[in-house]
């Protein structure tokens, strides 16, 4: 697949020859995002460099009724940037300008192609940072973060992307340029900025973003609670919150994950522990130690056999490296793994974790857990051998049963990875037909011909009944779930 000659020449007229690509290497490179084994080659890839160019190519695509998908760094884990139906990819990497830093209003205005971590690097020496910190922050772009409403370990205290984006400039699927929000916190009228954030690139393509800057904490204290029971670790989480303390992060690793990170990274976690809980407090230096003492007491009261405190920045970094690279470390104990992303009410953590373990045992596979305990955002890791078709099938079943369980306990399908292709067929399990139809009605408003990022978020028409029964629709063009499971192998999030 490649551009038709006449269309190609029109793109070249707008963008210049070097920014219109449909050679085989490019098409192969852009066939998928972080959901690596589900692939669909694009018709071609366009690299606009200005908002005028972006608007012009979108108008042209609209004129020829060619579907298109925006793409940032391609780190998404739900297939949101996979060019289904041979869509054209609009690569936003050239929008990497930092337009303005406004210290009084505490904002930074950037292009969507700016890498998440680069925002913080731009302002850190002035005492600020950009708070949402997905584990892929060294690579993922802010445009993709807005599209997916990304989170990260520190969202417990600081919130997710929607809480840190004050304004955007966006090109609608017909080429119209709109601005939403601004530099201040309150706007009259419906919160369209909030609606667009997390819409997975189906409403428009963002060309500029005003981000909120957060003052750097003066000091951070990192505690490591060690437990002989996962249930006790979960109780510690609730106990801290009940005492009116909101840590910057509360992250949990279970026994299986501990064994993996010890093999790979040697952070010094005890191998006989059933779970470790990382609690990070931050803020003004004064009074923080006293708060840490309170938390330490609470951890012990709720069953921590030992609480270690990082004595210096090196020790703190070691603990965080173990957390942030835990998924990759799983490779030490299993040839493949399938990571899920779902959220449950925090108080249900012990029950749900028990059930997840039981589901794994029922199917004869191990499920490891490393997750954002403070906000109930689970990432079960189903361990299997990709070379073993039976295990691949089992891991698929386990994933489905886990999702069913999350919904049963009042949870949701995704806390930070999005729905994309991966979970579209499960949406009818989570929402009523009416609620889904309303979401689709909003999509029709923004994207009436469904040219922008088609095939994402919603179940294929007529598939709901099959999905509810837990059976993948036959010949489904969107998802080959076996491939999907394999695709998740070895991806660090």
């Amino acid at each position, binding site marked *: 697949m490649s551009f038709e000659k006449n269309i190609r020449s029109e793109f070249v007229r707008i963008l210049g020859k070097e920014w219109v690509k449909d050679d085989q290497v490019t098409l192969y490179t852009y066939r998928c995002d972080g959901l690596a084994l589900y692939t669909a080659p694009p018709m071609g890839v366009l690299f606009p460099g200005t908002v005028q160019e972006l608007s012009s190519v979108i108008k042209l695509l609209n004129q020829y009724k060619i579907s298109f998908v925006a793409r940032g760094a391609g780190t998404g884990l739900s297939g949101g940037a996979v060019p289904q139906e041979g869509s054209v990819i609009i690569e936003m990497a050239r929008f990497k300008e930092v337009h303005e830093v406004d210290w*009084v*209003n505490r904002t930074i205005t950037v292009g969507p192609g700016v890498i998440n971590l680069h925002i913080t690097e731009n302002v850190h020496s002035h005492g600020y940072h950009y708070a949402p910190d997905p584990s892929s922050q060294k690579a993922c772009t802010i445009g993709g973060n807005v599209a997916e*409403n990304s989170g990260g370990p520190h969202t417990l205290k600081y919130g997710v992307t*929607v*809480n840190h984006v004050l304004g955007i400039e966006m090109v609608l699927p017909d080429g119209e340029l*709109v*601005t*939403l*929000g*601004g*530099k*201040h*916190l*309150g*706007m*009259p*009228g*419906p919160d*369209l900025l*909030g*609606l667009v*954030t*997390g*819409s997975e690139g189906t409403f428009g393509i963002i060309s500029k973003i005003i981000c909120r800057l957060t*003052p750097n904490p003066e000091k951070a204290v990192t505690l490591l609670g060690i437990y002989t029971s996962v249930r006790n670790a979960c109780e510690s989480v609730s106990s801290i*919150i*009940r005492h*009116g*303390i*909101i840590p910057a992060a509360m992250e949990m690793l279970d026994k299986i994950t501990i064994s993996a990170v010890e093999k790979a990274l040697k952070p010094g976690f005890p191998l006989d522990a059933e779970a470790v809980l990382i609690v990070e407090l931050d*803020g*003004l230096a*004064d*009074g*923080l130690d*006293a708060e840490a003492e309170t938390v330490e007491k609470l951890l012990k009261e709720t069953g921590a056999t030992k609480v270690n405190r990082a004595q210096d920045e090196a020790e703190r970094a070691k603990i965080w490296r173990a957390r942030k690279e835990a998924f990759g470390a799983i490779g030490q104990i299993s040839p493949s793994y399938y990571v899920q992303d779902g*959220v449950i009410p*925090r*108080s249900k953590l012990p029950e749900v974790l028990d059930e997840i373990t039981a589901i794994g045992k029922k199917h004869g596979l191990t499920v490891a857990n490393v997750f954002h305990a403070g*906000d*109930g955002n689970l990432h079960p890791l189903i361990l299997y051998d990709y070379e073993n078709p039976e295990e691949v099938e089992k891991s698929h079943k386990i994933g489905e049963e886990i999702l069913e369980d999350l919904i049963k306990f*009042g*949870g*949701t*399908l*995704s806390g930070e990875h999005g*729905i994309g292709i991966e*979970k579209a067929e499960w949406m009818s399990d*989570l929402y*009523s037909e*009416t*609620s*889904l139809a*309303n*979401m689709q009605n*909003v*999509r*029709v*408003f923004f994207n009436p011909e469904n040219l922008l990022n088609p095939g994402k*978020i919603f179940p294929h028409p007529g598939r709901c009944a099959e999905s509810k029964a837990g059976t993948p629709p036959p010949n489904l063009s969107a998802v080959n779930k076996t491939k999907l499971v394999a695709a998740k192998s070895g991806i660090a999030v």
Partner: protein
Amino acid sequence: MSKIEPCSLEELQNWVNSRIETQVPFRICGNGSRFVSTISGNQKDIPGDILSLKKLNGTRFFDPDDMVVGVEAGMSIRTLQGMLAEKNMVLPVNPWFPDSCVGSVVACNDYGPNRMDMGGLRDCIIGIEYINGKGELVQAGGKVVKNVSGYDLTRMMLGSQGGLGVITAVNFKVLPRPVEPHGMFGIFRNEAWLSQLKELRKLRIPLNWIQALSTSDSSWVLGMGYSGNKLNRDRIEGEIREVFGNTLTIQPDSKSYSGQIFTPGEQRFTGFLPSIRDVWKMEESHFHVFATLPTEEIFTFPFETFRKANFKIAVHPTGGDIHFMHKSTERKEQLQHLEKIKSDLIHADSKLRWVSSTPKCSFMDLGKFGVASGYSLVKRLKKHLDPAGVFFAPYYDLEFDE
């Protein structure tokens, strides 16, 4: 004019459906705390029917361990906060009228002084239920604090002014009550506090709120709220004193500010808001708009002219908004005040809102200053989601070139 007060969701849905079928518009009110029976003279075709959600005021769920709560739209914020307080929790939203119902506060996207560091409604809302333009009951979001499953219709309804549907229930994530809330207060004879606040802001200390109020003797009361353990508070107080000197008074929670015109009330966490209206003796018919604007513009706003022209002014300097109040009740005079304020809002991003619809002036008088960026998109969305045009909301009726 007739007022309809459904007692059940089913009754409400049936009634809304009948209106959609006959394409008869209606107005929505909750407890009526800021709802006046007439909306200024320049509005045509004001619907006679008023839908009140006052009787739909139940609690859907309250899970203190998960710090989430779901209530029906007719419950007052005062009732909700009372329920949360019993579990030592709080929704960091203090609307001007504490008896406003939850649905109204969400539809107007109200917030309060805690918006600065603790977030407003858009940071707390996690789920919603509403009746849409087809008469269907829609549920969006959920009971969990982190959720990216599908479109965020919850936030779409936030600030929708009753124009996109009838909000019937809302889910919130709530916060633990702050540890030992305190406030520092001082009296200022001029606007010198503005430049001092600008300096304080550079220190990046965590404050719960900052609020400045003009007083009847043409001076200002400035208050700053903070919380935490003693070491933490000592540090914050020290930093504030570095900038303001030793003139500010420290007041812990539940201590009244005796001997002053302004009392911040018993709870430091809420700033002055609970008592301002009473102290200023402001009535619903009086002029009361507020402007939201970037922090930098608040620091440079010409407050002195307004203070000397007998305006009552409340300022949340960082975050940020300015409330302008005046005892004038005549439309002509109120419009003059409005024009004066508009002329001093320098930046195009600055926006104006009425705190309540007054009998003399309306949303329409705010013009471009009353709508957010992307207004034409919002107008089109309204037509798309309310094809029968039954959800009356003047917000969507302005005509101008963006």
